[in-house]
């Protein structure tokens, strides 16, 4: 209903505009600028910057001119909206849109520059996690082996060891018997599984242990069990959740025992973020126990992502409160374990001195640079001295450090070539976290000066799991996987498309992305053109893929005519579909913005697709063509539709198909490029082939990667930077890893001087 009204209003506005033009011939209508000056500027300011006490906020936004006009007509001027008619409103809307409202106008007014930013939420979380790791000496790393180290005992208190082995997962039913003939007592025995959990994505992990027996589960630390069901008491399923940062490993230990219980069984399961409940797969387990990681639980308000990537601009009360509460959380954690962190015994005669030097190290790590003597006094000595006891003193040191701008902001240094600033730009670029010991050492020795020195560090840093995690973060953002929540489909039309299949598809896509970037050639073109898909047994069955895999994922080659990289990955095809049908519009918009790198304005009119409005005999393509045939829609849909239609050979769950609604699918389209050239597309592979060879598409990928990595506008690094990056990208054979090094090096060594020249480098 409301859509109908919108359409009508717009229609009327159009009519009025037409009459307005006729009238304009008779008497001169006031210009938008005039109207704004007379009727709006008193509250909004001459350039829409806002007027304190009247309307404080600047007039910036992303509404279309039409929407602006509509709202202005209805509500402005605030005291008497009737004084401004639709014609005047439209004139004002046009004026403010071009003068200061739109992003283009703002870019024109404020040329891009490298801004002072605070840590994003992701950076904050990683920084405190790594900050506390600085003070741990144990650096065990998980190897290639997967599964958990298992110890079996002939007693319930783990005293008589029977044998050890590695179990690929924990999912056993021993019935009334024993786990193995080497366990001789059926009446009582015990098992411990330990090792590490490999968390792929950041978020809340729910753990489920199913057992009729007594058990305890520890995840990420032995301070307290996550689940304590040592007393078995009728409940046979135990659940608990914990937040984990993706791309890291966490210690895990599971104890169970049998004592006179009738039967013995145990299953260790989880629901990872975006996942479905399943036995924790071998892939996510390691028999090596790593040390625990501090995972902040304080919630933060979302980062500003108004320009398409998250960045730390603007401060708000809720952000200030979150940083305060987070600082308290860390301070309490550290002060209650200060002896452990300072590696000192409670009765050590040197305890206070050792804690003081720990505090200095802590603040230096937090500030990512050495402290001056004066700073040591302010941030450490004074705080310790004026507190009533050393624990309170440590608490104050941590609080002050984490509330300090030196911790919270990036880019405070006056001299942007300062070696520690370079180190931070490198580490926040590739890791979203603080510099490691190596980087700080290079900085201290003055070895982060030349492009080569910086690039060498960037190359070294690629091997760190945090780089993978950050790149995954970029890829998720690029493919809009960070917002996808519900892929479920109509169960009558798509039987068997279960939550488990959806979770498997996400894993499949993650594995594909990781493989494409980190194995072999790291070729951007493979992301779009590869004919392989990762499947497990369940996916293979559902998608009719022949494979001899039993459980875990394997890479299989498919018909290149049917599959082409991410463009045809069923996860994305299903994500950009309706519950009951495909959505060429969603798919088309995704391809337009993310794969071929064009920009789209928000639609002037929001129209919902309603299947019931169409003749039941039409194909989806015919319906969408009908829905968007209006001239005002075609401005954008002439681009969106051809791209979307080219994916019509895949149904709403991403299976290849040749018919739709009983008709043969027509995936042949004509796509008009930004240069006005016509390209004939006959399916997904054609779109992908076009994109990998197209300047705009390549630029789109590079720019999105740059923004996600550096979190500063690429234009701030000079107008020629995009061309330079693209050229070296091409020269490297579209190597994404090399592009990462190039981008990070470029931003890390940027002098910070404002680039003002216009025009391209010749």
């Amino acid at each position, binding site marked *: 209903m409301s859509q109908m009204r919108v359409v009508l209003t717009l229609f009327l506005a159009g009519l009025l505009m037409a009459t307005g033009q006729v009238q304009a011939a008779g008497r001169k209508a006031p210009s938008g600028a005039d109207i704004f000056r007379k009727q709006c500027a008193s509250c909004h300011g001459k350039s829409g910057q806002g007027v304190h006490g009247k309307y404080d906020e600047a007039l910036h936004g992303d509404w279309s001119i039409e929407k602006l006009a509509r709202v202005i007509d209805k509500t402005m001027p605030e005291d008497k909206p009737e004084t401004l008619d639709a014609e005047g409103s439209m004139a004002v809307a046009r004026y403010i849109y071009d003068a200061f409202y739109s992003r283009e106008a703002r870019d024109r007014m404020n040329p891009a520059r490298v801004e002072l930013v605070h840590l994003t939420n992701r950076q904050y979380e990683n920084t405190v996690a790594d900050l506390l790791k600085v003070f741990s000496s144990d650096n065990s790393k998980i190897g290639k082996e997967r599964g958990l180290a298992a110890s079996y005992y002939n007693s319930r208190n783990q005293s008589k060891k029977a044998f050890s082995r590695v179990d690929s997962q924990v999912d056993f039913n021993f019935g009334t018997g024993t786990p193995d003939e080497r366990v001789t007592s059926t009446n009582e025995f015990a098992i411990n599984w330990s090792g590490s959990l490999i968390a792929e994505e950041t978020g809340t992990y729910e753990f489920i242990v199913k057992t009729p027996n007594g058990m305890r589960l520890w995840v990420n630390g032995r301070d307290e069990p996550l689940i304590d069901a040592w007393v078995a008491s009728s409940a046979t399923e135990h659940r608990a959740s914990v937040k984990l940062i993706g791309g890291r490993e966490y210690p895990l230990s599971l104890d169970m025992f049998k004592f006179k219980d009738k039967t013995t069984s145990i299953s260790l399961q989880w629901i990872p973020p975006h996942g479905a409940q399943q036995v924790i797969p071998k892939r996510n387990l390691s028999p090596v126990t790593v040390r625990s990681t501090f995972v902040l639980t304080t919630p933060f308000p979302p980062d500003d992502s108004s320009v398409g990537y998250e960045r730390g601009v603007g401060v708000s009360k809720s952000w200030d409160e979150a940083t305060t509460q987070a600082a308290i959380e860390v301070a309490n954690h550290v002060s209650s374990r200060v002896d452990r962190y300072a590696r000192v015994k409670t009765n050590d005669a040197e305890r206070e001195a050792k804690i003081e030097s720990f505090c200095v190290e802590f603040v230096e790590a937090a500030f990512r640079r050495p402290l001056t003597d004066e700073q040591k006094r302010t941030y450490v000595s004074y705080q310790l001295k004026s507190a009533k006891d050393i624990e309170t003193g440590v608490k104050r040191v941590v609080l002050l450090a984490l509330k300090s*701008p030196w911790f919270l902001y990036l880019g405070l240094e006056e001299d942007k070539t300062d070696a520690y600033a370079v180190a931070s730009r490198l580490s926040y670029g590739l890791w979203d976290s603080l510099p490691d010991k190596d980087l700080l050492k290079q900085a201290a020795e003055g070895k982060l000066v030349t492009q080569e020195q910086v690039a060498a560090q960037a190359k070294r840093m690629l091997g760190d799991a945090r780089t993978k995690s950050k790149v995954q973060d970029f890829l998720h953002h690029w493919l809009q996987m960070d917002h996808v929540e519900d892929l479920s489909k109509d169960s009558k039309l798509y039987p068997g498309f279960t939550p488990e299949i959806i979770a498997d598809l996400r894993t499949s896509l993650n594995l594909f992305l990781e493989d494409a970037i980190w194995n072999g050639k790291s070729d951007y073109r493979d992301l779009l053109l590869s004919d392989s898909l990762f499947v497990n047994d369940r996916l293979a069955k559902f998608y009719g893929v022949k494979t001899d895999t039993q459980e875990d994922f394997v890479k299989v080659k498919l018909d290149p005519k049917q599959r082409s990289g991410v463009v045809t990955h069923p996860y994305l095809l299903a994500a950009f579909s309706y519950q009951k049908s495909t959505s060429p519009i969603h798919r088309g918009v995704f391809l337009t913005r993310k794969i071929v790198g064009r920009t789209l304005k928000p639609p002037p009119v929001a129209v919902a697709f309603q299947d019931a409005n169409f003749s039941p005999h039409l194909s989806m393509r015919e319906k969408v063509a009908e829905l968007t045939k209006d001239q005002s829609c075609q401005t954008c849909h002439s681009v969106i539709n051809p791209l979307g239609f080219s994916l019509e050979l895949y149904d709403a769950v991403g299976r290849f198909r040749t018919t739709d609604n009983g008709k043969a699918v027509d995936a042949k389209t004509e796509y008009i490029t930004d240069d006005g050239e016509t390209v004939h597309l006959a399916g997904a592979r054609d779109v992908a082939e076009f994109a990998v060879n197209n300047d705009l598409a390549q630029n789109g990928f590079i720019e999105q990667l740059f923004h996600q990595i550096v979190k500063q506008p690429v234009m701030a690094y000079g107008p020629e930077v995009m061309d330079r990056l693209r050229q070296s990208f091409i020269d490297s054979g579209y190597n994404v890893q090399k592009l990462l090094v190039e981008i990070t090096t470029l931003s890390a060594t940027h002098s910070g001087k404002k680039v003002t020249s216009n025009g391209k480098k010749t």
Partner: protein
Amino acid sequence: MNQMHRREFVKRVGLSAAALPFLMGLPSLGLAAPARPRQRLIIMFSPNGTIPGAYWPDETGSDFKLKEIMSPLEGFKDKMLVLNGVCNKVRGDGDNHMRGMSCLLTGIELFPGNVMGGGGAPAGWASGISIDQEIKNYFQSKEETKTRFGSLEFGVGVTDRADPWTRMSYAGPNQPVAPISDPYQMYHKLYGQLKDKESLQSVLDDVQSDLKKIRKMISAEDRQMLEQHETLVRQMEKDLKEGEKKKLVAPAPTLDTGVSASQNDEVPHLSRMQVDLLINSFVNDMARVATLQYTKSVGQARMNWLDIKDGHHGLSHEPDNNEDAKKKLTKINQWFAGELNYLLTRLAETPEPGSTGSMLDNTMVIWTNELGKGNSHTLDNIPFVMAGGGFGFQMGRSLKLDKVPHNRLHLALAHAVGHRIETFGKKELCSAGPLDLS
């Protein structure tokens, strides 16, 4: 916040709740005069049965004499109600110690489980909520009786293990509530936020001067954000100062330092620290229900401070004709009565905040035990002694009841606070309704 395992959540809520609504979310600590008198409930537990002959008064009615064990309570005789003849009639899995403990406040069977006791089938946790938690939930459901914590579970010398012998308080079926035996942990739960605020306040000036210094260094374009940041820090400082005006009725107590919660010989010291914290939390109206659990069922406290070298539970198994054991057990139980006397005295000398009279006038204290008698492990004639006021019971009496199920006593408590439930715990044991104690 993460969804936690419920049992874990209850266990952890002490620490995490203190960290949660941090600064501004802290409910007002100032107390307005209550519309109607407050009602509070404290359940104190000591283990291993009693020595009936040295415990139960011979007389019934208001003219009764306290025997040796209860002699420390002489000063509160007119405020006491001694209930002989209340029985724990819950049967099912588990030995008598387990059922004595975990059915004491729940009045319902244990689940089958893997904990094997000295008899009976192996059992797990209680299958229902305990009366203290039931009343707490009732208080928390109403604006006028709601408090920050609702209930607080204090322990003294409770060993650090979780089983049906160590838990009497249950938030629900299979949800034992762990008592906090470490006064410092309890202190952190009660006053951690306050201390956090103090620490924060002490560094805010330095944060401000930090911001000022840096503001001068950076470009004009970037300065705006730091100026905003400074404003926010100033605002926070103001808010904190505002918050200071809302004073606590009683300031946070100063605890003796370095008292180990796991040291047997510290039990007397820990007992007093915990009672003081309990009184303090009640004065500040942080909770209206509390449990105070001394050791645990089958607890082996060695009361060296009474010159008794044997473990409490071991002694309790000695036959009736072992006079030495009897003497020691009488002394042990007398010591618990002395701790109860300290609690009652503290309540009696503390004025009711915002009202007249003492806190004891509005607080019902119940002292109980998991067994009637240690060496027989009987669940009949469980010690239930009440002291205090505000529940509409006629105090200053000694009653001999005719083997009534203890569920009926729990019902009477619920009804006394206005929570008119028909049954509590095992339904079949409630048919005669709440005990009439008025």
